[in-house]
């Protein structure tokens, strides 16, 4: 009885998740889908979206891994405050984050001026996409790896030290390999989230168009059919990514 009740509620729940996907694939114009899939605009957008999310993830790995280790291994004043700060971007409206980033990285800002010396600018450029994606999804990576480090018994590292490893070596040869799994899944999840980012990207870099922005643009400028075909394509891509993440996780 109880089991069936739980089962029925669960089934309703799952159906309500599947339904939007089903609706899209039932209504989409498949000729248009194939046409868009082949279009230069779409292919460029896929490349930009994937590579921007990839670079954002690389940056998060470089800065976030030491941070996660620092927080997991050492005690210091304001530690929990620091941990909290890293999670804030997860809960702020993305459009507000986008405006904050625009101000921080814009041409008139310190960073914007500094970056322009190296020929980098963030507004309406690829690097703006990277910044927006990175800012709003790095905490996924960090919290995954932080949990990993917290789960790893610090005694492994102590044993390594007693066997002659410097802190540096015990980090690289013991701590990092033991969180390899969390690093990989954290990266994949961050990458996937980066791909899905919209609000901040739309403000900081409407161009070059990511898949999110392109969808919105099509919806607003070119009507439903194009947007729908694009949505279906994105769903297919998302599901492929998702299957990959699941395979890696298990």
């Amino acid at each position: 009885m109880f089991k069936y009740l739980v089962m029925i509620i669960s089934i309703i729940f799952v159906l309500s998740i599947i339904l939007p996907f089903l609706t899209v694939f039932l209504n989409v114009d498949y000729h248009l889908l194939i046409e868009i899939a082949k279009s230069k605009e779409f292919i460029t957008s896929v490349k930009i979206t994937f590579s921007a999310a990839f670079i954002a993830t690389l940056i998060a790995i470089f800065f976030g891994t030491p941070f996660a280790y620092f927080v997991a291994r050492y005690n210091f004043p304001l530690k929990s405050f620091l941990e909290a700060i890293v999670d804030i971007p997860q809960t702020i409206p993305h459009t507000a984050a986008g405006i904050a980033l625009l101000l921080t990285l814009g041409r008139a800002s310190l960073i914007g001026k500094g970056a322009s010396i190296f020929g980098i600018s963030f507004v309406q450029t690829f690097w703006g996409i990277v910044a927006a994606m990175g800012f709003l999804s790095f905490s996924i990576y960090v919290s995954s790896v932080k949990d990993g480090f917290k789960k790893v018994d610090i005694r492994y590292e102590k044993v390594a030290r007693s066997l002659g490893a410097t802190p540096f070596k015990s980090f690289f040869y013991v701590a990092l390999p033991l969180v390899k799994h969390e690093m990989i899944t954290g990266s994949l999840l961050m990458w996937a989230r980066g791909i899905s980012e919209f609000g901040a990207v739309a403000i900081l870099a409407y161009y070059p168009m990511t898949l999110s922005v392109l969808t919105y643009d099509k919806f607003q400028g070119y009507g439903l059919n194009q947007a729908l075909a694009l949505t279906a394509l994105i769903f297919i891509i998302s599901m492929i990514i998702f299957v990959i993440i699941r395979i890696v996780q298990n």
Partner: protein
Amino acid sequence: MELQIQNLKIEVGNFKLYVNNLKVNPGEYVYILGPTGSGKTLLLEAIAGFVTLKTGKILFNNQDISILPPEKRNIGFMYQNYHLFPHLNVKKNIEFGLKMKKIKDPTFFNYIVNRFNISHILNRKVQNLSGGEKQRVALARALVTKPKILLLDEPLSALDQDIKMEILELLHQLCQEYNLICIHVTHDKSEIIGDCAVYRIVHSTLKKEKSDNVQVPSYDY
């Protein structure tokens, strides 16, 4: 070449531990008894260099080693759950110390592997070893870099009853064979064999027991 601890004081949070004097000679096997939470592990970690001392000295060969980082103390450490590196196979676990210290000594490596009778499991994953095998691999890993001191944190507690005695005898043999300074901490007085010095942690302080009278009332720990 003896290990001597003088006026040691450790403070971690509210926890305190005092060691007025502890002296162990090469080839000597000493026991430290104490109930769970009395600071046995902490004391070993202090000797190995993982805990900052409040006061006191740890002398080895009359030199204060308490200022050295753990990797320079040349102390073998074995936790009760061995902590074999799960991402490395048996061989790589044993070689780890050699690699870190950049020692190349295949003869001694082979000798140790044979001494502990683990040459047939070198390519196994450490997860798939039995308790006794894990124990022997952990000992091989600790001893392959030729430490002078071996710290044993409840070395028998994760073993099945029937091989406890076997391993205990092995530990005593190793102590003599390599002229090691061995410190064995445990809460189980039945692990004491031979005529060894026995210390006990009582009220946060390490105290020596008469070595011929270890049979104390059981309510004490």
